[in-house]
């Protein structure tokens, strides 16, 4: 437990590593809390814990994920990120260079997203009592949308947009785990999407509701929106963007990309007459360059339906539990 006692060894670890990588003028004060000067308006607050195996995967790592995930949660209510806090639970024996790589990646992700890490905490647990590293980030944001962004504002006939190809993160991580003997150059889509969201709002698109399709993928995100909004959705299967490599890995493992996680995508429901303008805006922002209109909201409350290329229709239900690779 060399780093766990709160003494000087611990102090050195925090100073060297966390301050060096993450301090942008707020951490160095070494006080018990960060003090932020804010002006009026609404604030958004969210928190999320991150555990992922493996910790490093093509396109990202747990550090980048912990920043992007929280920034994206803020963005989904139309908020611009102001500050993050980060709490680490480290398992004794985690190689220092690995921790450095994770913290540096967090710093790069935060800089890229334009958000400061203003406070943090570290605990070390005995070997065998953690899975390397767990990170919890809390995000504070300033709401910039002039109207509420909520599922109950969705109206039948509204257009359903997705900001890029779906299912990539889930499949990339599954390949990176390496125990399936599947090889692919597929990389996670892990990214902060708030710039695309802010561009929509600044462009005057009256976004009704948004959701980031993380665990459970696009299918679960749409089911959540449908049940909390009291509407349904009809999806056109051929219009849902799926990277051919994602499709290939999913095909091989017998999994469905529509249920596979994204970490740098969002779905947005917008008034039908603004759909084209919204797509133009999204496609002009790098993180959402692959945006597409994939369907529309219906009156069929709580039901998500997919129309296949053959004109047949089926339900896209909420599935719980992890998808398991198949036998043959």
């Amino acid at each position, binding site marked *: 437990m060399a780093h766990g006692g709160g003494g000087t060894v611990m102090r050195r670890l925090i100073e060297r590593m966390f301050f060096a990588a993450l301090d942008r003028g707020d951490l160095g004060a070494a006080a018990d809390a960060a003090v932020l000067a804010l002006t009026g308006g609404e604030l958004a607050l969210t928190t999320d814990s991150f555990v992922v195996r493996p910790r490093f995967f093509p396109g990202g790592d747990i550090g980048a994920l912990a920043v992007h995930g929280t920034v994206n949660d803020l963005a989904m209510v139309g908020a611009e990120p102001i500050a993050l806090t980060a709490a680490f639970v480290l398992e004794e024996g985690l190689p220092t260079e690995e921790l450095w790589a994770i913290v540096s990646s967090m710093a790069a992700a935060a800089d890229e997203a334009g958000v400061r890490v203003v406070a943090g905490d570290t605990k070390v647990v005995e070997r065998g009592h953690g899975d390397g590293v767990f990170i919890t980030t809390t995000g504070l944001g300033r709401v910039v949308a002039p109207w509420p962004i909520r599922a109950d504002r969705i109206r039948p006939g509204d257009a359903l947009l997705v900001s890029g190809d779906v299912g990539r993160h889930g499949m990339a991580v599954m390949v990176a785990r390496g125990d399936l003997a*599947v090889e692919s150059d597929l990389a996670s889509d892990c990214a902060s999407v708030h710039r695309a969201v802010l561009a929509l709002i600044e462009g005057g698109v009256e976004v009704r509701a948004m959701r980031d399709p993380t665990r459970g993928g696009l299918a679960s995100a749409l089911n959540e929106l449908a049940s909390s909004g009291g509407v349904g959705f009809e999806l056109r299967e051929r219009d849902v963007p799926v990277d051919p490599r994602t499709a290939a890995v999913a095909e091989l493992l017998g999994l469905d990309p529509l249920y596979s996680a994204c970490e740098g995508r969002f779905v947005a429901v917008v008034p039908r007459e603004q759909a084209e303008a919204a797509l133009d805006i999204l496609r002009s922002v790098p993180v959402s360059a692959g945006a597409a209109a994939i369907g529309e909201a219906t009156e069929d409350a709580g039901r998500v339906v997919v129309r296949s*290329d*053959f004109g*047949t229709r089926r339900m896209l239900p909420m599935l719980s539990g992890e998808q398991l*690779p*198949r*036998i*043959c």
Partner: protein
Amino acid sequence: MTGLAALRDPALVLALAEEIRRTATRPWTIMEVCGGQTHAIARYGLEELLPDGLELVHGPGCPVCVTPAETVDRAARLAALPNVVLATFGDMVRVPGSEGDLFLARARGARVRVVASPLDAVRMAAEDRSETVVFFGVGFETTAPAVALAVRQAAELGLSNFAVLVALVRVPPALEAILSGPGNRVRAFLAAGHVCTVMGLEEYEPIAMRHRVPIVATGFEPVDILSGVLAAVRQLEAGQARVENAYARAVGPRGNAAARSLVLEVFEPCDRHWRGIGPLPGGGFRLREPYRAFDAEERFELPSEAPREAGECIAGLVLRGIKKPYECPAFGVRCTPDRPLGAPMVSSEGACSAYYRYRRVGA
């Protein structure tokens, strides 16, 4: 258009559907044998494209589904032994035995590892000889070559710490049993393309002849499946009962000679109990004498148990095509993928899971 896109081409699919509608003049019941086909049919809503009287019923081609509960129990018991690791395909871990599934066994301390190939299990055994790796060998003729290769590799490496719990099954005896069973409605089979890829078509000739049913080797994509249906309907309408190959890009008449001879070198047919169907003469494979030392049931003395099934589950009727999943009172209510009563609800090839997952609108 190449590859998969061509096999999912809407124009081709709709043209095939139209040709089937033109050809079928009477009601017919056709069974697709393989669960992979069932899932594609449900996933793409292909039944909506067929004429009213043409019914597809779903066959027993889900290896996970036909593995008896007592075999799952035996696997769980092996996994709980000291110095034993059970290696299994992913979709086996949620299949309920009579005392819970392998997830539960793992939660209670048993060691269960998910692998994608039996060769991974051999590698595990070679890397750490202090433990015995038991591979849970579930599968059809499709999976048998990989298991056979694993056994032969373990024999060549002299791995005395590798064993297989053999639960491999053979398709032809199941077709025979379905056709001979009471209440059979099946007039033609779409045979499982991957099984035919390995074993060829010869084994089906006597069945087609004896029972007067067309048997069409069929693939797994929308164009494949509708091509198989069309071939079967053409035969039925013409009063024919031949073995036909509608999956020629993957199936040769004699199968894959190398894979087949490997399977027959390591395994021999034996009688086997199928979950939901009962004992089938010749319904399984067991290790041949020179490889018998790798048989986990010989290596570890395990009590043999009477078959036990969840009372309400109608998996047997579903697997024989007599009932559809939604005709089960527990379907989607007391039996869901999270809390399954029977294997067809959990397996990625199970008919119940296909119906649960790809519910038709209005169903």
